[in-house]
């Protein structure tokens, strides 16, 4: 049943931003979306601990404890300064806080780390494109934002159907 719903959304996603599909629960991410909890057990001990702190930060963000979330992401980077997902979470945080320039800088850092660590899979790319699009839209650069958001929706309509990424969708 849920699969059908997702497929229906996928067909419609490219053409709308606000529809019934966007009323899906924030935690109800589809099979296409990258959830950081899925990969939190990977890597060396430093990366795993760092990922735990990122997940903790996303929970704090979901509870609107913004300062705590920032602190968790900062600590995640202290443990593993090369963790691209910490920068991804920071970018998401800054998009939702209305600080697009900061978000774009974090996305650049995340993308270059993902690239060199060969973790730039389509499931991550959807978030990179979507967040970049959302940040550009926030910065008033709608024309640049639209194709990126459209591509993110295409790659992952379940998460990016509404043009935004909730903390729990990334968690």
């Amino acid at each position, binding site marked *: 049943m849920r699969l059908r719903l997702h497929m229906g959304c996928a067909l419609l996603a490219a053409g709308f931003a606000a529809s019934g599909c966007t009323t899906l629960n924030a935690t109800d991410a589809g099979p296409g979306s990258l959830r950081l909890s899925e990969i939190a057990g990977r890597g060396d*001990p430093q990366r795993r601990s760092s990922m735990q702190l990122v997940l903790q930060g996303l929970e704090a963000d979901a509870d609107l404890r913004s300062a705590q979330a920032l602190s968790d992401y900062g*600590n995640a980077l202290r*443990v593993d300064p090369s963790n691209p997902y910490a920068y991804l979470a920071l970018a998401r945080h800054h998009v939702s806080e209305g600080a697009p320039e900061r978000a774009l800088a974090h996305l*650049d*850092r995340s993308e*270059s780390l993902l*690239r*060199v*660590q060969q973790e730039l899979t389509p499931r991550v790319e959807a978030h990179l494109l979507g967040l970049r699009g959302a940040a550009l839209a926030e910065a008033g650069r709608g024309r640049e934002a639209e194709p990126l958001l459209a591509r993110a929706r295409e790659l992952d309509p379940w998460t990016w159907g509404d043009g935004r990424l909730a903390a729990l969708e990334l968690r």
Partner: protein
Amino acid sequence: MAGGELVRLDRIVTSRFEGRRFRVPSRVLSAPTILYPGLDWKRIGLRDLLDRLGYQPEPARSNLELGRLEIGHRIWVSRAARVHLRGFDHPTRPERPRDILIRFDGSIVREIRELPESRVLGAVLLEPEPIGSYYGPDRAQRDLVRLGDVPQHLVDAVLAVEDQRFASHHGVDLRRIVGAAIANVRAGGIRQGGSTLTQQLAKNFFLTPERTYRRKLEEAAMALLIEARYDKDEILESYLNEIYLGQRGSTAIHGVGEASRFYFGKPVRHLELEESALLAAIIQSPNGTNPYRHAEKAQERRNLVVSLMLRQGRIDPASARSAREASLRLSPPTSEVRGARYFLDALRRQLPEVYDSETLAAEGLRIYSTLDWRMQRAAVSALVEGIESLEKQHPRLRREDPSARLQGCLIALRPQTGEILALVGGRSYGASQFDRCTQARRPAGSAFKPFVYAAALEPRPEPTITLATPMDDSPLRVDLPTGPWEPANFDHEFHGRVSVREAMESSLNVATARLGQDVGMGRVADVARRLGIESWLPTVPSLSLGVADVSPLEMARAYATIAGGGVRPEIRTFEDLVDSQGRTVARREIGFVRVADGGTMWLVTSLLEGVVERGTAYGVRRAGIRGPVAGKTGTSDDERDAWFVGFTPEMVVAVWIGFDEPQSLGLASSRVAVPIWARFVADVTGGSVRGSFAAPPEVIELDIEPNSGALALSGCPVSRREFFLEGTEPAETCPEGAVRSQFDLDREAGRLRDSFMQWLDDVLR
């Protein structure tokens, strides 16, 4: 005393009590220590850290997980530890107290669980450590406490020994005065004081220490005025924050809050009865009963305080017995982190302008810095001991005049976040406050060369060279209006046709100067500026060889940009600045900007790895450091400045050594700066560097013929691997005119290796 005099005294009292009662120096705290599975607890010195933070040791238990453990206590057994963390206050990231169990595998933290639920934790934070304060001229430090945070047994202990009728008198205790007078007459001298807490407060707040009848009279009058105007709790709280309780070096410790942290390493609310009694015991003569120097005397007086508390009915006999039997458990005496004053000055320069010296000395701000306490200590040792060892090996570098001694600096940054992890601006802050890391500008010498190569390798749209381009190290003459410029190599030889790698690894001046001329000085300067150099750069031919004066901080930042794949970080010395009410009033978040492409930066990194593997910085390997390291030495004209700026995937460290008044060292940087760099990195990493300099996808690896730089295809007699930005690989081939065969394509794509591995698997199966 005349009415006018009383009015004057009343004005003095009210103005102090109604205004800011205490000047509290702002305090700088280190970054918190993060514990996580996989961490090497021995390398971070976890046991010492817990001691410094005042965690009280408890005897081992048969089952470590069972039973209650008080906050601030710890149990350490061979393969595990249980610690009841205190947590810490912070307006944006408070940590609650947690009772944790840490299991070890040798020197590695295997697991952390929170008790009693036994919940697995990914990481926990230990409270930040104080690294220094911004003092006023009085050099007094205090940690203000509210009466509600002071344990009742501390109040009782102080009252028992200093003023047992505090609750009932009106500022002056006649019975006590008479009693003290009788005791003094009997003893034939002054043995006992008759002052109440209020009188002591009046004396400390308003009066000089002179012993005259007039001053005594003023003290009594002021005590009466204070009691008339303010309630007992307010007076007691002021007293507990004002009282002098000892010295930390040249800093006076005032108040029970600061004393509790100094003597026991913990906040006052966590004091135990015997500790409270000891603080009360110290009040009468903080230096004469200093528990570090006069332990027996301090313990004797502590027990006297306990007896007084028992006699006055403030504690029961069982508590008194247990307090008297307790040994003096003091936290190790702490001085401020050695060498951190340079960091504090650098931090002050980064604060918003409103935080001037007066504000910092009085407002009691808390500044959460980026400094890593352990790295800072390692940096101080590496620099100070490294320079001393140079002076021992080369006595001609010694100078008698302290202001003319050989100097140096070391700065360590995190390239991804721009955090300064350690900074030592000189050998001794006491002797010279000039910070050579952030304030000095010295010629970078060959440490500047990576910017020339970055400019040459950067596609704009085409690169000037690739890593396969042969370079020319034959005599060069550049005619300038001031006369000809003819650079020479360190060994005074010319090396003819050399590879890019040889030119960088052997730090060849002539080949690099020629490359600089090909690229153009404007472009070299532009790349250096984009990467992070802010000092003025003269666009003269010798810029390629590092004639420009730059600071070690700038160099560290520019190399951080290379290490970070072309993303330049904003330098940060602090994260949060919190006022005395606990509100965050300034914050410095992670910031960065992309200034160069990742592929070019990776090629430069690869060249700089060669400098460490085979070139002038081989001393890093000789020192036993394993793992990914890249860097460049630099020696200025006449060997006046010795540099090494090196990086790992997670840290950039710049070292500069020289005299403040430039003089020749007579030594190359490989023998001066590299050993100090290696000593520091070996200390903080344990000799094993984590991570790798992974190539971004736009970098491809191909075989080339080393002499010509042509693409080596099937049939080429000699070849070696080299890296290129995709699309910049050589057009020429070896053998000449050959075309790529399927074999070549497979080899480039790594398919041959894969098929060989498959074959090997099949054979072994």
